């Protein structure tokens, strides 16, 4: 056991993670501001991580980056808003929205992704870009471009622990994300559908031979990704306190960065990448004054670029060896 633990820690990526965790812990014990920024960053990172996870789910199944993922999440958040306007309570609306999001993701895959999927990768990417514009247009058409407000899911309360102020909202976001990831992981690990989906994503042809309905598995994958996106969207709304059509646009870019950082094919990597990015950017914003709000996004991508150059398949990705 000791040897296994040691070999776990020796792998460079894990060593890096452990060092980062120790650094954050020591910093938080030393300074209350550091601790506050870390927790707030953790909550933001949870949102990035959820959306990044959605991107990774789709990438593993279809080898395509879904540019519309963020807009889909934004649209489902508007659905929740509409339900609440009709008098549904927040949490009932939340879960109804997740169900609807699944349906929307599923139908999207069947209607517009499946027909082009085997023809050309670039065509699928362009379709998702088209969906991006389409969804954005539809939302503004239906609800308008002005700012909307939704009730705060976890209340406005702020806890004070030894001088560290922590918003209940942040704790809620973090816990909800953890719960979502665990449910999803359990779904993939312990259910027949999950097994089928993993088989369909990793080895489609053999999976088909043993009777997995690969097409339907991919559609379910899109549905689940949309559910994750909806969670990310609702939490992003709760963190920003306002709902507007541009809700997810910056977050989508951070989620891209997070997913690539973790190595596109690794679900755990996406979540870790998101959390890392959230905390890191918050701390940098606090302590490095050169990195102003305008440079936040370019900086995130500069970090991403450096990681890619050192390790072209992301932190958790595996090198692909290709036969010629």
């Amino acid at each position, binding site marked *: 056991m000791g040897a296994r633990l040691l070999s776990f820690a020796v792998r460079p990526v894990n060593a890096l993670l452990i060092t980062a965790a120790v650094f954050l812990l020591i910093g938080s014990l030393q300074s209350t501001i550091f601790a506050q920024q870390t927790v707030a960053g953790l909550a933001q990172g949870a949102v990035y991580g959820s959306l990044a996870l959605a991107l990774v789910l789709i990438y593993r199944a279809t080898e395509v980056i879904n540019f519309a993922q963020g807009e889909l999440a934004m649209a489902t958040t508007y659905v929740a808003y509409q339900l609440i306007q009709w008098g549904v309570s927040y949490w009932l609306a939340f879960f109804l929205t997740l169900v609807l999001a699944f349906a929307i993701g599923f139908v999207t895959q069947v209607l517009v992704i499946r027909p082009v999927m085997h023809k050309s990768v670039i065509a699928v990417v362009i379709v998702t*870009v088209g969906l*991006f514009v389409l969804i954005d247009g539809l939302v503004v058409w239906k609800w308008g471009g002005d700012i909307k407000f939704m009730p705060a899911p976890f209340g406005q309360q702020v806890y004070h622990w030894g001088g560290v102020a922590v918003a209940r909202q942040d704790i809620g976001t973090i816990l909800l994300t953890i719960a979502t990831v665990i449910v999803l992981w359990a779904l993939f690990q312990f259910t027949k559908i999950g097994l089928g989906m993993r088989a369909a994503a990793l080895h489609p042809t053999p999976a088909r031979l043993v009777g997995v309905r690969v097409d339907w598995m991919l559609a379910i994958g899109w549905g689940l990704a949309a559910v994750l996106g909806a969670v990310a969207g609702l939490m992003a709304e709760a963190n920003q306190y306002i709902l507007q059509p541009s809700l997810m646009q910056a977050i989508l870019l951070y989620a891209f960065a997070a997913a690539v950082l973790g190595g596109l094919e690794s679900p755990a990597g996406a979540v870790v990448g998101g959390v890392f990015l959230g905390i890191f950017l918050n701390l940098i914003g606090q302590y490095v004054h050169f990195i102003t709000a305008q440079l936040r996004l370019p900086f995130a991508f500069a970090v991403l670029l450096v990681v890619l150059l050192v390790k072209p398949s992301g932190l958790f990705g595996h090198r692909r060896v290709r036969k010629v």
Partner: protein
Amino acid sequence: MRLSRADLFGVVAGAALIAVLPFLISDYHQALFAQVAVFFIAILGLNILVGYSGQISIGHGAFMAIGGYTTAILSRDHHTNLVLTMVFAFAICFVFGLVVGLPALRLSGVYLALATFALAVSVPQIALKFDKFLGGSNGVQSAKTVSHTWLYGASWTTAAILFVLAWLILRGRLGRAFRAVRDSEVAATSSGIALPIYKTLAFGISAAFAGVAGSLFVMATNGFAQPNEFEVILSLQILVGAAVAGLGSLWGILAGAAFVGLLPTISKDVPVVGSAHGQDVVFGLLVVLVMLLMPQGFAGVLAALKRLRTRPDTS
């Protein structure tokens, strides 16, 4: 890539149409069609990279921004002739393209796509950050503005020159090397093609084209180079245009450029969707439909038509 008689006829007919058009349309429409030329050049450049050398870029708006700012700054600080600034934009973006192409050597597929996407996101932000030189959100204004007719003539002339240049590049040694790299890197290497040289060169040439497009783009916006003109959506528009045109062929580009250049304006005039964001709905819907119906773009349709026509002769 020999020209058949039909190809030649197509080129001549297209050129004639473009040459006659400004005499038939209003001043406003000349500006609109000049915009199509800008997209034409940018898509042409992107196609050299994606369609011929097999490297993807979702960041060509960044090179357009660099070209555009080059024109505006040269005009502001040195009163350089606007046509000359295009040459500078070409050269500077060529160098930038080579520089971006170097790290791109280590990346491929989706990772390259996202790295170039990062570029598209970052460049406008940099203009905001260094506002002393680059003017912040107000941008940089060139010392001189041009008439719509001048713009139409200049942009289509440039487009024609660059089209011929692209055709010459792609039909020769360089183009063969690009296509070999695209089809199989291993096979290309083993036939003596130095991958790093050709891959970065493709990036450089492609970026240079985008730079010229950006230069004209700034002239078309009354000489203003502003960060919000060069946001991510511009890069996506070029990519959509290239896909609608069809990758790996030069014959669909006019259609692709017209698609992204004219559609938003046309759909604004459709009565049912008239409202402010109805045009987004129409544009998005059409992008999806076009990709569903012709995943190889217009060039794919043209090729299919050609096969249809020649098949009876061969059988």
